[in-house]
């Protein structure tokens, strides 16, 4: 019976393509927009994710996300070091610095200051130069994307200089860094150096990066720190999610993407659902004849579900495939955030499943209430 169902489906070319197109359209839009949304959300927290040497982030209790800097006094570092279970803890500076170039151009940077002794928080992968060069006077390392943005099509040139807060900065290396939400170039310096690149303030320490002592979990140490210092302590993973959730709840981004995704869903459902419905209605006589000839209702439902399943699978594959192709092509272009986790695939699959069920339920009803006697009219 299934081959008959499939032949019925593919035999009606225009409807068949129409249904597959509708589902492809919906899956493409849902998967692609979902992936861009995830990409953006990932960018909001990319600076946390990029720092891998430390699993604990300690901050002022008022901090809501990674770009919400509320500096602490140096004292807090010593208090955190004194908490039981803390293996080590170091300063971390994160802020925005304004730079001036010799040609008079201005540029905002994300400035990261790494603990002078350990360089915890350093970039993961150097592209040019070496991390140790950061120890030289006035040295900074810039992210590759930022360099390309500032000096497009120019090869890396060691020792380029520019000014931040009237202090000279010397470029000693390039590194890889994940694209950020703020999109500014990233500049790394030693902590002591970084604090000179920004106007002097009483409190400068943005975060404390720490790791648990042997035998302690990060979770336990976070609790200890919070209890004993009143500061906010989060594991890296927690802080990533806190940041993502902040952007999700406090910005219009999810709503905007939600609208596009819903539109894709609605339009796809309308096209695919309606065409599928029409397909079944047009075949009502044939279904009636089959019922007269002894096909049970259950088998009829099975045939319709199979037809819906096939167009669903095909449309899903094509849509997700096209979205992936789009993602691959956009990798060249750093400005486009694109990240496709399995959840997006599952969401798209769920939506397609729903479209299929909806379309087939509507039409199944028509076939089930159909009197086999209709074939004699």
């Amino acid at each position, binding site marked *: *019976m299934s*081959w*008959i169902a499939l*032949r*019925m489906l*593919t*035999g*009606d070319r225009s409807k068949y393509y129409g249904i597959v197109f509708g589902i492809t359209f919906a899956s493409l839009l849902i998967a692609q927009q979902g992936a861009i949304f995830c990409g953006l959300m990932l960018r909001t927290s990319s600076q946390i994710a990029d720092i891998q040497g430390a699993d604990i982030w300690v901050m002022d209790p008022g901090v809501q996300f990674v770009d919400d800097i509320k500096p602490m006094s140096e004292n807090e570092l010593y208090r955190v070091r004194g908490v039981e279970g803390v293996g080590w803890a170091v300063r971390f500076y994160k802020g925005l610095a304004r730079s001036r170039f010799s040609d008079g151009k201005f540029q905002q940077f994300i400035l990261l200051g790494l603990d002078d002794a350990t360089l915890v928080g350093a970039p993961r992968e150097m592209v040019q130069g070496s991390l140790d060069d950061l120890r030289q006077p006035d040295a900074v390392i810039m992210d590759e994307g930022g360099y390309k943005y500032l000096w497009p099509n120019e090869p890396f040139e060691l020792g380029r200089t520019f000014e931040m807060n009237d202090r000279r900065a010397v470029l000693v290396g390039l590194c890889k860094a994940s694209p950020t939400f703020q999109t500014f170039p990233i500049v790394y310096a030693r902590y002591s150096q970084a604090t000179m690149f920004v106007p002097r303030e009483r409190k400068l320490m943005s975060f404390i990066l720490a790791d648990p002592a042997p035998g302690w979990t990060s979770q336990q140490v976070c609790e200890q720190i919070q209890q004993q210092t009143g500061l906010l302590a989060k594991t890296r993973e927690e802080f990533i999610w806190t940041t993502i959730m902040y952007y999700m709840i406090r910005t219009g981004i999810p709503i905007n993407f939600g609208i596009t995704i819903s539109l894709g869903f609605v339009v796809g459902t309308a096209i695919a659902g309606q065409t599928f419905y029409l397909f079944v209605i047009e075949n009502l*006589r*044939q279904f*009636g*004849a*089959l*019922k*007269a*000839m*002894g*096909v*049970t209702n259950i088998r009829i439902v099975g045939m319709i579900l199979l037809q819906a399943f096939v167009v669903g699978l095909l449309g899903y594959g094509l849509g997700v495939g096209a979205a992936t192709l789009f993602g691959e092509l956009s990798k060249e272009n750093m400005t486009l955030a694109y990240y496709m986790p399995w959840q997006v695939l599952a969401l798209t699959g769920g939506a397609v499943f729903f479209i299929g069920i909806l379309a087939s339920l509507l039409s199944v009803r028509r076939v089930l209430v159909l*009197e*086999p*006697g209709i*074939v*004699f*009219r």
Partner: protein
Amino acid sequence: MSALASSAAPTSAAFDGTHAVCVRELSKVFGDGDGRVTALQDVTVDIAAGEMTLLVGPSGCGKTTLISIIAGLLEPTSGTVEVLGQDLGRLSNGKLVRFRGEKIGFVFQQYNLLPALTAAENAAVPLVIAGWSRQRAVARATEVLDSVGLGSRARSLPSQLSGGQQQRVAIARALVHEPRLLVCDEPTAALDAHSGHAVMELLRAVAIQPDRAVIVVTHDSRVFEFGDRIISMSDGAIERIETPAASMSGRESGT
């Protein structure tokens, strides 16, 4: 009128197995209130195996309603139908569907072939429904297509066939699983006189078998000669039952 019908029909104690179909005091009412239509009223009739029975009468007299009930496609309002000794009213829905699939063949006025399937595949459908593999079913269907003279068109789609050829495919489909009862509703109505004739000739040639009853609904008087017995209906009741010769002469003498 009903007195005439019951005198012409075999008497009641005829559930004896010689008749493939026994209809007893069958009534069918559609709708209720003002829209109430009595399509059949107290119909009692037997239909024998081994011959072709024509069901004739003016439009709206209840022919389609009667064969729909006989074929188990429609439930009567009252009365009973026995097909091959089986009281259809006593069958559960599932069993009735299976009974239809196994024992009854259908030929429809509009052919109702699946447009996406070839002639052979269309003719194979009842075997597929019965659980045959596609290959076996199509092979058997091709043989049957041969017997209706369409062996060479087995791979054609319905859209590539003429109306008469499509109806022959439909006949092959109706017979492929060797049903004990064949019901045909206006099989020639959509065809020109020549093709209609050919279809009736074919039905006589391939459909009639000792243990099979063939019922053909028609109001095409040109094909009356093909029937072994003609049941005339009027206003939801059987008017008379006769042989074609009697029908022709009756017509001529104006009775």
